[in-house]
């Protein structure tokens, strides 16, 4: 269960078309007429965002899967990435998800 005091929670926009391509993923946004290519880590985060998830939860899960980054580094990376997705309208904050 996410600790709501710790970090914001997000969920990917369930209406957006996407497709995995081996490790990567493509996300299509017909409203903005844009297409987004996610690398392996981005695609994994997109997968985790199928259900409402906090940045901390995502960072914790990724820490188990990826070596070489400290939990704090991962958290900052995830926060920046999810914030970027949010800025593009690809993920929705808790309450709108």
């Amino acid at each position, binding site marked *: 269960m996410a600790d709501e005091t710790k970090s914001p929670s997000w969920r990917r*926009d*369930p*209406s*957006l*078309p*996407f*497709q995995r*391509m*081996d490790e990567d993923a*493509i996300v*299509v946004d*017909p*409203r903005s*007429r*844009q*297409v*987004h*290519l996610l690398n392996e880590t981005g695609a994994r985060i997109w997968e985790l965002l199928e259900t409402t998830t906090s940045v901390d939860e995502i960072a914790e899960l990724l820490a188990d899967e990826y070596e070489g980054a400290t939990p704090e580094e991962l958290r900052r990376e995830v926060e920046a990435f999810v914030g970027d997705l949010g800025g593009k309208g690809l993920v929705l904050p808790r309450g709108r998800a």
Partner: protein
Amino acid sequence: MSEREAPICDDSSVIGVDGDGQVLVAKVQTWARKNVVPLNAAIEITQRCNIRCLHCYNFDRDEPRDGCATQGGSAKPELSTEEILRVMGELRAAGCLFLMLTGGEILSHADLFVFLDRARELNFSVQLLTNATMLQPGVAARIASYENLQGVSVSLYGATPAVHDGVTQMPGSFRRTWDGIRRLRHLGLSVRLKFILMKQNAHEAEAMRAQADADGLPYLVDLTITSRHDGTNGSLSTRLAASTVEDLYRGPLRDLGVKEGFEPTDASWACNCARGNVAITARGDVQPCISVPLAAGNVREQSFAEIWASSPLFQRIRGLKIADYETCAPCDHKRYCHRSRGAAVTASGSYTGVDPFVCATAEIAHRLCDEAKAPAEPPPARARLAVIS
């Protein structure tokens, strides 16, 4: 494989994607083709239609036969709503992202919105092919409410009501189609026109393009009318004469038709059929493309995944090289050829065959390109002498 070696035919290009997005779409298309993932699928949800186009490739709408069998395919009833929904799930599981719903006329199907609901649940990027005549305000608004709707493709057959309605055999269809187009655009949807040129409308080609340009609408132009998938060929009476194609290529279509391509490789000659592209007909036949009436199997008898993976037809298509196209391989016009597999199959019965109309069109484009490249005629001798003196 480079993007240059992996052309995507016009019908499977993605509507409603801007700038850099098209580069990414090309990248994912190349990936799908290389990995044989059916990224693009068309489902013909019905062959019913409210207009009766003279050139329709489905079947002779003036004299319909019982069932309209694809070569080696079925003459069974059309797929039920439940069957189409099941196939949509199977396509998504197989890796399809870009789903086109086509007909017939899609709005003739009572459950179009059931399919659109399911497509949204499955995260498809959806494109619709419609004649737009049934897009009343409420219908257009409902369609526009689907966030995953990528765009709508609309066919047009003239620049004036008399010509367009003459082709559709439906008085008022020109006005209704344009009303539908404008409603969709007003609602913010991406619309692309497709001009099918034939004897009846070739004289309006320039005006059709001008209309689209004036409205800022992208469009494709298609000159290739084929015989029908029910085995009849009345549609061919609308086909352009070669002399008209040449007139068009010298005139209003010069910038589109007269282009020198590159010498094809085995990879580039192979189109997206059965690699990144697939189609399901209204009767459940699985085809390499909606315009290629060859059945690889039927979704009523096998799962889509099984047909995609093991159909002998698809495996054969995936293994073809230029040398297997006996007429095309030695042809000098390949660099100018807009080869259509659908036209080849309907004209010759073979995927590797040819349609003489397409061959003639390539020859004309080649000749006009050569003419354009030829050095200018030197001035008459007398004039040169006059300059010297």
